[in-house]
């Protein structure tokens, strides 16, 4: 039975992505290994350093950029991160200059918001709706 150990986002610039995903979102570096022109670069949640790794993967394949542009234009997030409290996280990130395409809103059993990762992706953050 496979387990999910990694997931990835296509980023337009690994160095910029590394800064955003660590300095702004708050992940910590797990692996940073030179791989020729690019790096094998992963980050993890500081609360769960042995948990799922997020691979910051170069988007240089010709199909990647049109895909990112197409879904972003319609506001579709590429992936979802869980947070304790979307409203609080929204305030924290907005104060750091993060752009949101969707402010916190209840969506069924979750509260969600959608942010721009500055690397060509929209990312949804979600927390359970308050009981």
């Amino acid at each position, binding site marked *: 039975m496979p387990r999910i150990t990694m997931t990835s986002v296509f980023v337009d610039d690994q160095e910029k992505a590394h800064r955003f995903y660590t300095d702004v979102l708050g992940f910590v570096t797990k692996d940073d290994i030179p791989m020729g022109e690019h790096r094998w670069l992963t980050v993890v949640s500081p609360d769960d350093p042995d948990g799922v790794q997020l691979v910051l993967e170069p988007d240089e394949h010709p199909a990647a950029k049109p895909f990112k542009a197409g879904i972003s234009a319609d506001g*579709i*997030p590429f992936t979802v991160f869980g947070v304790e409290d979307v409203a609080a996280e929204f305030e924290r990130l907005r104060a750091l200059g993060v752009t949101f395409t969707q402010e916190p809103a209840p969506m069924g059993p979750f509260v969600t918001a959608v942010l721009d990762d500055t690397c060509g992706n929209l990312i949804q953050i979600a927390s359970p709706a308050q009981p």
Partner: protein
Amino acid sequence: MGDVYRAIADPTRRAILDELVERDGQTLFELCTRLVTKHDVASSRQAVSQHLDVLVDAGLVSRRREGRYTFHHVHTAPLGEIPARWPTTGG
């Protein structure tokens, strides 16, 4: 300019207007998510986009491109034609 009466004759289009009045300036993704979670509208993204085209034609919604994103805004002014044409009567 499309017909405002035709535009609001459809319940999904009325729900779209409800959601944009609640929060103006939404992406297609946000609108679709609100429709499915709050109004039980299971229309495809493409169908919702076509409903938006009708609302845009009637002047009730506009699309604004900002950077890589498109946001939808509501304009209720064309609905003023309704009470102007049929003023509210007493009791």
